[in-house]
């Protein structure tokens, strides 16, 4: 642990700390543009120049000493970039020297040289690092003043020539726009793409004064591109969904949690005048660090358009707006004398713990077998042990069965980190290291540490030492065979995957001291396979990372919403139906006598079949807690965008139960939280770093088996996000991927548009042939519903189309 002196303060920092982090750790400030947390330090912007000196050792191995007997400090001949200089024993750093101040002012001057003065119309204005650093460290009176007509004025630049002009509106994708005039060439975005998601789609083109950021991969692949708008220190890369929507200080900034997937990524919801305008990543060092997926960032448009603002009641076949009192009267009339066991209580996948608790308690009190939540898998994910995401970095080998890039995009980024062999960074007083010297550009990925299997080639396949594609439906066989080999038995053959590959995986798995198993929705839908994974983890000691398709699954199952015997979200049965947050499948609605849906948006199925629709809150607007895939308790805070009268699940349930003349388990959020806490002793008051809730559960798996032929591939994008035309334009029509042989058998032509109908909805899809798929495979994006399942389907060729 080197000890060094920063100005007047003596500090001790871990080995390998950069001078930049040492300065911040000591409580001093130094400006920087090119360094960014989790990216390699490169010393490009030269803003962090400081005066550095260090003692030297003589030939005798002892410090060279001055006359007073102290180690003599040898100052570096020039100022050093603090971000790429390693802090060493006895080092002395001066950040306040006159020459440092002058160098900083000079560098600001250079950075502003070609930077346009369009801050008044720039979306970054007010949250711009260049603006802030220019104010703090730019030219200042002491050095730069001029006297004109006897008046002393401050000079902001000593250069007077026309600024360079370049492309100001270069669309990189539907979501990101690049302004090449504003770019200061810090290279953060270029490094981000190579180092974090591992796709080199941005680079410096040309050189010197002509350098600009360019790409041959336009539009940028949707998935992880949005993070560059967060880390851009200037307004060069901007979020198009929020373009010109507000100045930064006008946003209401709400720190909450993304509930589109089970990772539990921390986000900022920036809203203004009751509309969500922008989502940004919020730093959470232990979960999402500073990254979120494009779906979490850009898929918010649905929440602010066409909201339901009042109850709708079906009258003469039409849904018409009514008062809450009329809705109440309607419910009281229709529910009078209703039997408890007829009632069906269904909850959306992004529900909070409190909502789940209220629904579970109500279902228990009503003694109904009809309750559950959307996208519940056959095997309860709460049965599987949970590991912290950071623990993945300590593993030596990871076996992935599924598609993390789509199922839990942030876990995919963690896997990338794992491939680079980076262990969790030390924490300083200022937090995550800004210039982590362990990180380098183009770090080799240790492919031998990763094995990936999925029913189609995923983004991760490219990085894996062993990568296999099996036909959908063979996941049980795959897990079984691996399990057999690990236990020294003869495996049954797995279609599409040679036994030698499996043996290689098993060998590395056993050779590794710590191992991780990452399983997706498909495994959770095959109870035998999931149970095998659970047994494997127990017997051989492996970290398990399960990626359930329902964001709240772990928590909802644990608070009692797991329903192994009765009818859940999928199966018809309930006569009197209350569904909160999403519309259940058509067959479930059709089987009910009374259909009450609490929704934020009216969808076609609800329009056709609902009897009463109540306005509901989206997850952005809810207060409450959730348990993420690692068992961490995270707090949701409400963004002020819910229409007046929009209900959360607890209120909607109370409304329903009062209609039945029963006392609700909780009338409002506060009460639900207290009851939940009383019942389950949740660590709600602990800081999120240590707040884990992992009750040991042995829930029974739900019976059943998939029999269809169409595989619904998990996607980070949800069906509701497609309400936004920008998202639709970016994603294009869904791709129906088929093995060429399969396509020939079904008479599908590549490029043809066909209508695919499944139990989850109807899509116009474009046929795409993929020889990498297994023979017989037919894959359609799930858009969040029924991900990882094989379903029956009907194909139709629309009039005028061909297939």
């Amino acid at each position, binding site marked *: 642990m080197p000890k060094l002196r920063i100005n007047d303060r003596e500090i001790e920092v871990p080995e390998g700390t950069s001078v930049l982090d040492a300065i911040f750790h000591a409580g001093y400030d130094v400006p920087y543009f090119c360094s960014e947390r989790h990216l390699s330090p490169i010393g490009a912007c030269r803003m962090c120049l400081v005066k550095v000196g260090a003692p030297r050792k003589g030939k005798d191995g002892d410090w060279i000493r001055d006359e007073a007997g102290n180690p003599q400090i040898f100052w570096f001949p020039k100022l050093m970039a603090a971000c790429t200089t390693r802090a060493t024993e006895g080092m002395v750093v001066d950040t306040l020297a006159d020459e440092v101040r002058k160098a900083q002012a000079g560098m600001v001057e250079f950075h502003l040289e070609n930077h346009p003065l369009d801050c008044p119309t720039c979306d970054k204005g007010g949250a711009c690092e260049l603006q802030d650093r220019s104010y703090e460290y730019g030219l200042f009176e002491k050095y730069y003043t001029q006297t004109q007509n006897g008046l002393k004025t401050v000079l902001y630049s000593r250069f007077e020539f026309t600024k360079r002009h370049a492309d100001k509106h270069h669309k990189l994708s539907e979501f990101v726009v690049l302004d090449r005039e504003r770019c200061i060439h810090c290279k953060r975005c270029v490094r981000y793409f190579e180092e974090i998601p591992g796709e080199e789609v*941005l*680079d410096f*083109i040309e050189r010197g004064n002509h350098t600009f950021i360019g790409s*041959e991969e336009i539009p940028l692949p949707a998935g992880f591109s949005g993070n560059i708008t967060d880390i851009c220190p200037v307004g060069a890369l901007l979020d198009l969904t929020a373009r010109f929507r507000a100045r930064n200080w006008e946003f209401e900034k709400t720190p909450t949690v993304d509930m589109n997937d089970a990772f539990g990524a921390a986000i900022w919801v920036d809203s203004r005048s009751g509309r969500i305008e922008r989502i940004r990543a919020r730093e959470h060092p232990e979960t999402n660090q500073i990254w979120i997926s494009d779906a979490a960032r850009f898929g918010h448009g649905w929440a602010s358009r066409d909201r339901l603002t009042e109850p709708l009641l079906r009258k003469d076949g039409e849904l018409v707006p009514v008062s809450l009192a009329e809705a109440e009267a309607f419910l009281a009339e229709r529910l009078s004398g209703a039997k408890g066991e007829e009632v069906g209580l269904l909850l959306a996948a992004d529900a909070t713990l409190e909502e789940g608790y209220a629904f579970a308690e109500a279902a228990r009190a009503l003694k109904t077998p009809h309750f559950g939540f959307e996208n519940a898998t056959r095997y309860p994910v709460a049965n599987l042990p949970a590991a912290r995401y950071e623990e993945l970095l300590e593993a030596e080998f990871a076996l992935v069965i599924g598609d993390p890039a789509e199922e839990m995009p942030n876990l995919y980024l963690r896997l990338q980190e794992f491939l680079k062999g980076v262990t969790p960074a030390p924490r300083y007083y200022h937090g995550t290291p800004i210039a982590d010297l362990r990180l380098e550009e183009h770090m080799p990925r240790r492919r031998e540490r990763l094995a990936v299997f999925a029913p189609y080639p995923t983004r991760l396949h490219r990085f894996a030492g062993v990568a296999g594609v099996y036909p959908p439906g063979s996941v049980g066989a795959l897990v079984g065979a691996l399990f057999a080999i690990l236990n020294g038995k003869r495996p049954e053959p797995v279609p599409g995957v040679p036994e030698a590959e499996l043996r290689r995986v098993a060998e590395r798995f056993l050779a590794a001291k710590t191992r991780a198993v990452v399983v997706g929705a498909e495994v959770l839908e095959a109870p035998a396979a999931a149970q095998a994974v659970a047994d494997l983890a127990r017997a051989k000691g492996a970290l398990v990372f399960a990626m359930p398709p329902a964001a709240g699954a772990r928590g909802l199952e644990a608070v009692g919403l797991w329903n192994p015997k009765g009818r859940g979200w999928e199966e018809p049965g309930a006569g009197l139906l209350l569904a909160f947050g999403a519309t259940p499948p058509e067959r479930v609605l059709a089987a009910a006598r009374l259909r009450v849906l609490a929704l934020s948006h009216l969808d076609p199925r609800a329009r056709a079949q609902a009897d009463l629709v109540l306005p509901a809150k989206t997850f952005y607007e809810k207060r409450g807690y959730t348990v993420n895939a690692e068992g961490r308790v995270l707090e949701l805070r409400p963004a002020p965008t819910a229409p007046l009268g929009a209900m959360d699940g607890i209120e909607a349930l109370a409304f329903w139960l009062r209609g039945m003349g029963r006392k609700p388990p909780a009338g409002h959020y506060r009460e639900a939280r207290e009851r939940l806490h009383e019942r389950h002793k949740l660590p709600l008051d602990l800081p999120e770093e240590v707040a884990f809730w992992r009750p040991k559960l042995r829930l029974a798996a739900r019976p059943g088996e998939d029999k269809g032929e169409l595989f619904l591939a998990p996607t980070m994008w949800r069906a509701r996000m497609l309400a936004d035309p920008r998202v639709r334009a970016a994603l294009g029509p869904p791709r129906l991927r088929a093995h060429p042989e399969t396509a020939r058998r079904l008479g599908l032509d590549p490029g043809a548009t066909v209508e695919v109908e499944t139990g989850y909805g109807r899509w116009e899809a474009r046929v795409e042939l993929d020889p990498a798929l297994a023979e017989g495979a037919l894959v359609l994006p799930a858009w969040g519903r029924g991900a990882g399942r094989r379903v029956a389907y009907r194909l139709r060729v629309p009039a005028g189309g061909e297939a």
Partner: protein
Amino acid sequence: MGFFDDKQDWLEIVFRNYPPENRRAAVMPLLRKVQQEEGHVSPERIREIAEILGTTATEVRGVMSFYSYYQAVPTGKYHLQVCATLSCKLAGAEELWDTLRAELGVGPGEVTPDGLFSIQKVECLGSCHTAPVVQVNDEPYLECMNRERLRALLEGLRAGKPLEEIELPGDCGHEVRKEGA
């Protein structure tokens, strides 16, 4: 058909010089091969190289555009590069450039209709003592250029003479010294 389809043996020799797990290190020799044989590196070739090396076209273009040697647009049989940095500029490179443009009737990025010539201003070629300097393709420098020598050069090239056989009128200081030495 791809450019490298019939050059698999050549590729194998090149790849032997680079670590197998990091094929993208071989981007320069591949670019150079294309530039030498086709006179420029087209977007299709960029994509082809990216595919061979297992990287993205963006990265290949980033490397390519860094070096002025690689041309993004087609060049003539003789690509004339006029040094336009300080010493040559002082010695009359601008006039030389104007003459060249007038004689050939093309600007940078264009090729004469007969496909013979294209011109480009380049940064310092490192022969300031014999300024101004012109370079044709990868050949040795043509030094102490002036209008007469330039016309003689163009005439010779048009007549199809190899560069070393073209006689340029007048001489250059160091050639005299060379003879004396």
